């Protein structure tokens, strides 16, 4: 036991150095201990202005929509793939995972070439005498980029719970008189809830904080939470306010995840079904 404990030392060292220390520094900046005139809540007060709150709400909403889109697109795909037999299943699943091996930034740039004013799609449209469209630098482009980027992170956990759930449950449901649709909603879907929850966590959190995709596809005038924080650090040099924003975001995300997990635990116990 004592010996095995040593295996965790590298991890502990790593997290102290790169997780706990930065978080502490961030807190010290946010409360004005570092870079300010002593303990103050001013940085937090600054946040509670309509302009910032709006950006915050917009980021949350966008992340929520992105998560929902990912879920709606991934679930049927994950379901379909999980029902295939061995070989086909592995091929399709690999095809979905392979793009994630490529750098997210590169993939976002490729979306820019697709959507740009003189990009592939618009060139294609003009070929047929159609007018060019403004596809890039709007919320639509941001959604496309984000959903595309995060899709595998939603698909994978759902897929893995679906293949792990024994098919006998669905058989039992049909045996008890439920048709395929009822079986799906009463058995398959609730049993895959853990996968959905993990998927939501893996998509929602990074998409609230994301700044590269909104920056590249959303253009300069679109401001999001991630971009705002980045802006404070690198453009404005206001580390105090930037840290306060990061702290608020962390707290909000943790709170949301707490409730999602709690709901999940309840639904697994079946308490909300009766």
């Amino acid at each position, binding site marked *: 036991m004592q010996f095995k404990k040593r295996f965790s030392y590298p991890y502990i060292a790593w997290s102290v150095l790169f997780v706990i220390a930065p978080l502490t520094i961030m807190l010290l900046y946010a409360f004005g201990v570092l870079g300010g005139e002593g303990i103050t809540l001013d940085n937090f007060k600054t946040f509670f202005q309509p302009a910032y709150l709006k950006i915050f709400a917009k980021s949350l909403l966008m992340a929520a929509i992105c998560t929902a889109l990912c879920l709606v697109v991934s679930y049927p795909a994950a379901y379909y793939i999980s029902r295939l037999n061995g070989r086909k299943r592995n091929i399709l699943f690999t095809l979905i995972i392979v793009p994630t091996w490529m750098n997210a930034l590169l993939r976002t740039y490729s979306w820019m070439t697709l959507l740009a004013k003189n990009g592939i799609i618009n060139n294609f449209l003009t070929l047929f005498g159609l007018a060019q469209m403004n596809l890039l630098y709007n919320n639509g482009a941001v959604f496309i980029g984000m959903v595309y980027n995060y899709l595998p992170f939603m698909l994978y956990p759902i897929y893995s719970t679906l293949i792990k759930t*024994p098919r*006998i*449950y669905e058989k039992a449901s049909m*045996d*008890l008189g439920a048709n395929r649709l009822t079986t799906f909603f009463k058995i398959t879907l*609730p049993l895959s809830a853990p996968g959905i929850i993990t998927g939501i966590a893996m998509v929602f959190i990074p998409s609230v904080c994301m700044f590269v995709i909104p920056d590249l596809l959303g253009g300069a005038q679109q401001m999001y939470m991630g971009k705002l924080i980045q802006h404070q650090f690198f453009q404005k040099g206001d580390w105090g306010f930037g840290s306060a924003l990061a702290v608020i975001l962390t707290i909000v995300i943790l709170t949301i995840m707490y409730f999602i997990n709690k709901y999940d635990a309840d639904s697994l116990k079946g308490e909300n079904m009766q």
Partner: protein
Amino acid sequence: MTSTILKLENISKYYGNKKALTNIEWEAEEGKFITVLGPSGCGKSTMLSIIAGLERPDTGKIIFEGIDITHTPAYSRAINTVFQDYALFTHLNVYENIAFSLKIKKLSASQIKKRVSALLETVSLSGYEKRDVRTLSGGEQQRVAIARALANEPKLLLLDEPLSALDLKLRKEMQRELKALQKATKITFVYVTHDQNEALSLSDDIIVINKGSILQKAPPDEIYAKPVNSFAAQFIGDGNILNSVVMDNGRAKVFGTAIINCETSGFKKDETAYALIRPENVYFGSAKENSLTAKVISSIFKGEYYEITADLNGERIKGRSEKAFEAGQSAKFEFKDEIYHLMRS
């Protein structure tokens, strides 16, 4: 007057090139307890899935209450199943599991409640409504699975090795309860097992199946006394299957010299056959002059008697004795005066 509730006509099922079931034909009388007995992988579970509608046969028909239901989906059949590992829905509690089919039928909440309480009482689990199915013991899960399958008041209940996960004592207890339940409800049971004792003690009829084909369908006593071939004989009960030569008028020779009385109708004189002699009919420690002598291989104390396994000219013989023998010792044995069963294969 009993009537046929289920009829399987020429059912075959293939998985790729592999035959799972070949030309399965049998019928079940209403209210009977029918056991499908066979080694694992013989196709008995596939047959059950086909009756339930969870798998489609490649050939043949299933007639249920006089109607061809071969293409009726599982959810429209008045047939329910108790699955091998129960398949209780882990996201639902005991009450919700049992109420599952009733909710689909859109019964009123009060009707459902009444029915679930009655079912829980039937399986002696009153008060378990709110329990998480994952916290129940094997026996309790088994009961919930039975209650859930009975909720819909099926005409036919399929049980796929329902007791295989339970320990011996609990298994015996559940066997008694299942039999009592079947008698009380008068539902036709089709019970799949590889346990011969279970089959013998529960059934009105046993269907012995091997490699996807039915070997024999008969009541337990008949299967025990007159198995159709040596496979069925070995599978039901303990038995010596001895090479024999048919003599005239109801006699056969075993071990080259010993003469036993046999049912020889259908056999020709000097035909070779297999004689089935149950160990309870072989008595070691015989003092008769014409008794045979074999070399003891093992002698196991069974409480009331010793079970002796011995070798005579390369053939094994198992029997009983009042006293113990040493391995390697010579022992005389004789056959009880019975009319023994002969088999061609």
